[in-house]
């Protein structure tokens, strides 16, 4: 256990030393990783923010419930009491056919034409505000309400919310694909850095093997180096995103205030930030492992 620990500490210290030994090269590699990762992570942050923003706009999705023309006061009272006891309904407003007609006459300027009608063509209606629901649950509620007796038609006023949701899902897919592609670039960066290191450290590796170093002993510092470089690159990506948010947040706030929306950009959550670091560290480790598996066997003592 003690030997094991001392081997790992030794490898970690060596990895730090190697990272510091070529500061410019390390810095460039880290910048490449950081920029490559800030793209998908940045788009991810953007999508999360859009989702939060769309939640604010459509905070309480609306449903319109149109009754049959022959519905009477009893039917209205029944539906009213049903809505009062239905948890997803936040509030509702009854619009009688008479008041609807009055408003229509005022709004449309067609009062003369409307006056000529024998009877009121408009139905009684409920305008319902629901609690914040996912589009799927909203759809279920619509179906449920549409099946109430004396209800002619139930309509969700959230087609745009559905479209935005579909768009965000597409965006998430794009982030995943972009992330997968750019992950390869991280592996490639780690692979190449380690390859160069192995070439320049040929003598050291050879001597170590000659005096009894196991493959694990020689390999370990390279793996630590890959993981270290990867996680520092991930941290660089995080900083790039932070800078982006810092720069745009103020302007965005001013812009949205014109639309009377109070909104601040969110950063990556702690969980997402940690995943970013762990993921980039893991990729660096994988790239280093590939490189070591490929190149270390070429350095055999002669």
């Amino acid at each position, binding site marked *: 256990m*003690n030997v094991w620990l001392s081997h790992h500490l030794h490898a970690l210290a060596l990895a730090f030393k190697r990272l510091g030994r070529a500061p410019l090269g390390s810095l460039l590699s880290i910048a490449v990783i950081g920029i490559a990762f800030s793209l998908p992570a940045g788009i991810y942050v953007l999508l999360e923010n859009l989702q939060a923003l769309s939640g604010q706009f459509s905070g309480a999705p609306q449903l319109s419930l149109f009754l049959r023309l022959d519905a009477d006061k009893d039917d209205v009272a029944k539906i009213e009491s049903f809505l009062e006891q239905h948890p997803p309904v936040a509030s509702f407003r009854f619009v009688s056919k008479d008041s609807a007609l009055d408003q229509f006459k005022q709004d449309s300027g067609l009062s003369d034409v409307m006056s000529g009608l024998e009877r009121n063509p408009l139905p009684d209606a409920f305008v319902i505000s629901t609690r914040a629901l996912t589009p799927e649950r909203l759809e279920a509620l619509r179906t449920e309400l549409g099946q109430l007796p004396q209800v002619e038609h139930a309509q969700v006023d959230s087609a745009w919310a559905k479209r935005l949701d579909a768009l965000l899902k597409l965006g998430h897919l794009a982030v995943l694909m972009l992330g997968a592609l750019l992950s390869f670039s991280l592996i490639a960066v780690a692979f190449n850095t380690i390859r160069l290191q192995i070439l320049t450290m040929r003598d*050291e590796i050879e001597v170590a093997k000659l005096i009894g170093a196991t493959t694990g*002993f020689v390999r370990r510092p390279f793996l630590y180096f890959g993981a270290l470089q990867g996680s520092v690159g991930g941290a660089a990506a995080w900083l790039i995103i932070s800078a982006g948010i810092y720069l745009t947040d103020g302007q965005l706030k001013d812009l949205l205030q014109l639309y009377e929306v109070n909104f601040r950009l969110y950063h990556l959550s702690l969980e997402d930030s940690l995943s970013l670091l762990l993921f980039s560290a893991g990729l660096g480790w994988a790239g280093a492992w590939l490189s070591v598996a490929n190149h270390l066997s070429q350095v055999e003592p002669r």
Partner: protein
Amino acid sequence: MISFSQVYKRYPNGYEALRNISFSLEAGEMALITGHSGAGKTTLLRLIAAIERPTSGSIIVNGQNVSTLKSGAIPFLRRNLGLVFQDQKILFDRNVFQNVLLPLQISGFGSKAATRRVRAALDKVGLLNREKAWPITLSGGEQQRLCIARAIVNRPSILIADEPTSNLDADYARDIMDMFVSFNQVGVAILIATHDVELLGSMQQRILTLNHGELAA
């Protein structure tokens, strides 16, 4: 300690470096391997450390059959051997102390115990006051002593040296040989390859002579 039995080493190009080598070195024994250039001295030493594998025959080192040793076990075989290489293989990007420390880092010594051992080894070869020096600033004889310190720091039971006195003038060579004799006196088995005939004349040791890959009787 070391035992060769009917060992052959043939290279892929057909060159036969060693033919039918059989000998053994007992624990605490010291022997010199001599012979002309290309006689197979280096190849013989490399077979002991499993840097190369024999074409046929068996080599037993410390009770392990080196010719059939799995590659995963080779590092542990080498940790029990002290190796002094013909081309020295000093690492010029670390100082004297760090060069000698390397074998201990590999076997996973704690830093305090390791420091004590490194100082002890440097003391034995007379380099204690140069521990912070860079290898490039050492003289030829000092560089050779650095190699020896690195070979003995693990306290191996067998010390193997390939041409440890080449490129040294007679006085330095004498010093180095005396050092090996003193290690032998504390019980370390020692095998040295050398073509330094002058030196041999003054030594009382067992001598194995190689001639075109065969041991002379």
